[in-house]
């Protein structure tokens, strides 16, 4: 008899999938919306329970799908880190959908909305599956599912511009997943396995005997390149601002906050469980990631400074934030990886908060998007203004907010790597200054009265208030007491490398 909690990961994925399939049956969009938010919230609660059980017992288990034993069957595996990631994915999805509801009503045609929620459910299912899966081919299939779903939520607005942005996004994503596919096919050819524990065994054998060194390097390179393209690492970010900036508010929040992270999580899982971090370090992959991460931090911010469109500015800022994650991974130390994961969590709550507030602010100002025409919007809706300010301060790295903690941890981690110490510290300092250069004027503009302000008082939006308050609490919570989160990350990564 299995312990009861071992069924939870599968139940979470399955709930989202079944819910997604039933969406078109809802005659009214409101029913579909409510069902999706409810399921995401239920998944969040279940993941929270799983996290509590696994982190209390320090357990990582694998769960057989379909009762076939190890080398043949399909498996999912969960530890404390995976459970916490699942909690984050589902919670932020629920809050983003809740907070962006009035924008959905405005942007998406009523009869098309149930289909939008199909994609949202599938996206959440794919993200959960990417986190939990223990089989690399299943990971590939879910990468493709998340690609389609992510593209579909961009094009849900159905203007010619968003469709063109979707096509660019789709093409780049397909290039990335094509490279990932050929990488795992090569890996299968030299090891003969698809399940992660068996792969790890074979790879360790190959490394010990020195056989197939070149193919193994090519495999690591292809997988890393594929994932880097899909999560907009430095030279591959041209598609991101159009796709993330043009979509409806909830889509932007989820794409920037979560979808980019799903792939990184998979990559880290492969690094730790399959290739082992020592091999990755000896292949100098970490140094490559470090260089491109630093370049991304600077380039993303420089683009954001020039941007006038508020959502595209936030999208470029995501490029910089992904750079931070890769900087942490690129340090090649355990401390760097912890910092990278903390950054993943912090950005996953901060960016949706910013997008939701930006969406709300532009809504109270007649759906304007340019910062110039949004002047004074924060005075019309003070709650959204405060939310945006909290998010911006966290992005700049003011103490008490989440962004400060992740930058602090990154700086702290770079102390253990003398070679990369100065580049990392200079990049962190420069990028913080650059963040301030575009976030501070944006915040000031939003609080400055202007002729564009609405003359009538606007109706408060309760759903937005709940969602943004919850996200703001998360941002401040991560800044004030990040120790438990860091503890789970540390133990989770140790277990990931151990099995």
């Amino acid at each position: 008899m299995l312990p009861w909690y071992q069924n939870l990961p599968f139940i979470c994925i399955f709930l989202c999938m079944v819910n997604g399939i039933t969406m078109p049956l809802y005659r009214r969009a409101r029913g579909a919306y409510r069902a999706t938010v409810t399921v995401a919230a239920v998944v969040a609660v279940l993941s929270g329970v799983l996290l509590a059980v696994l982190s209390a017992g320090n357990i990582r288990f694998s769960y057989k799908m379909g009762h076939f034993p190890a080398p043949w069957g399909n498996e999912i595996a969960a530890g404390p880190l995976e459970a916490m990631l699942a909690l984050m994915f589902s919670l932020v999805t629920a809050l983003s959908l809740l907070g962006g509801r009035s924008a959905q009503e405005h942007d998406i045609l009523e009869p098309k909305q149930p289909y939008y929620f199909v994609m949202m459910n599938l996206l959440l299912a794919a993200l959960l599956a990417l986190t939990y899966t223990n089989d690399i081919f299943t990971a590939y299939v879910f990468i493709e599912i998340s690609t389609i779903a992510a593209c579909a939520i961009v094009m849900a607005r159905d203007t010619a511009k968003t469709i063109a942005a979707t096509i660019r996004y789709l093409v780049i994503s397909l290039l990335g997943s094509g490279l990932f596919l050929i990488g795992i096919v090569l890996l299968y050819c030299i090891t003969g396995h698809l399940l992660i524990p068996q792969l790890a065994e074979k790879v360790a054998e190959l490394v010990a005997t020195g056989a197939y060194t070149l193919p193994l390097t090519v495999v690591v390179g292809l997988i890393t390149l594929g994932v880097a393209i899909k999560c907009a690492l430095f030279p591959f970010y041209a598609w991101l601002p159009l796709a993330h900036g043009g979509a409806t508010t909830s889509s932007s929040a989820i794409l920037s906050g979560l979808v980019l992270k799903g792939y990184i999580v998979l990559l880290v899982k492969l690094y730790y469980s399959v290739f082992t971090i020592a091999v990755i370090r000896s292949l100098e992959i970490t140094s490559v990631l470090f260089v491109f991460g630093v370049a991304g931090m600077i380039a993303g911010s420089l683009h954001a400074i020039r941007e006038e469109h508020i959502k595209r500015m936030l999208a470029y800022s995501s490029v910089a934030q992904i750079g931070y994650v890769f900087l942490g991974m690129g340090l090649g130390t355990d401390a760097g990886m912890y910092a990278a994961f903390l950054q993943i969590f912090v950005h996953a709550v901060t960016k949706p908060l910013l997008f939701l507030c930006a969406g709300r602010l532009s809504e109270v100002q007649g759906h304007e998007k340019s910062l110039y025409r949004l002047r004074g919007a924060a005075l019309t809706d003070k709650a959204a203004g405060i939310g945006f300010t909290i998010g911006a301060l966290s992005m700049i790295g003011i103490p008490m907010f989440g962004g400060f903690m992740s930058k602090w941890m990154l700086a702290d981690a770079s102390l253990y790597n003398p070679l990369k110490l100065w580049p990392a510290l200079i990049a962190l300092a420069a990028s913080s200054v650059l963040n301030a250069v575009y976030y501070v004027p944006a915040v000031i503009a939003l609080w400055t009265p202007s002729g564009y302000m609405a003359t009538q008082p606007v109706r408060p939006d309760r759903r937005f208030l709940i969602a943004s308050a919850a996200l703001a609490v998360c941002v401040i919570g991560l800044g004030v007491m990040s120790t438990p989160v860091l503890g789970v990350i540390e133990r989770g990564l140790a277990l990931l490398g151990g099995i």
Partner: protein
Amino acid sequence: MRELFQKIVIYRFEIGAIILFGIGFMNLLLQKNLVKKIIGFNVMDSSVFLFLASQGYIEGRIAPVLTNGVTSASAYINPIPAGLVLTGIVVSVSVSAFFLALVQRLYLKYGTVEFDEIMLLAKKEAE
């Protein structure tokens, strides 16, 4: 020379797959015509499937269907790559369908499948 020729014959599927992957990848990346882009994507995915299927094939053995009561595994080829190819085909078909639907929408709006022209028209529209 003779040895090289023999090697090419032995690795014919792999060589073909790599060439096709390159062709498909570059078409998907650089082609301006959206329909040709989709064809490039399909060529790229098919090349991976060819590579995978050729890895599962073992010269002189037969498909893993029980015939004439031969139960020894050494008589049959490896069926797992074929299963993976099947899954991959399903994925690639659905992505192609989604891509084609997007292109159709743009064509209905702008009357062209050239991506450059579409971007130009979209920019003009925004101004």
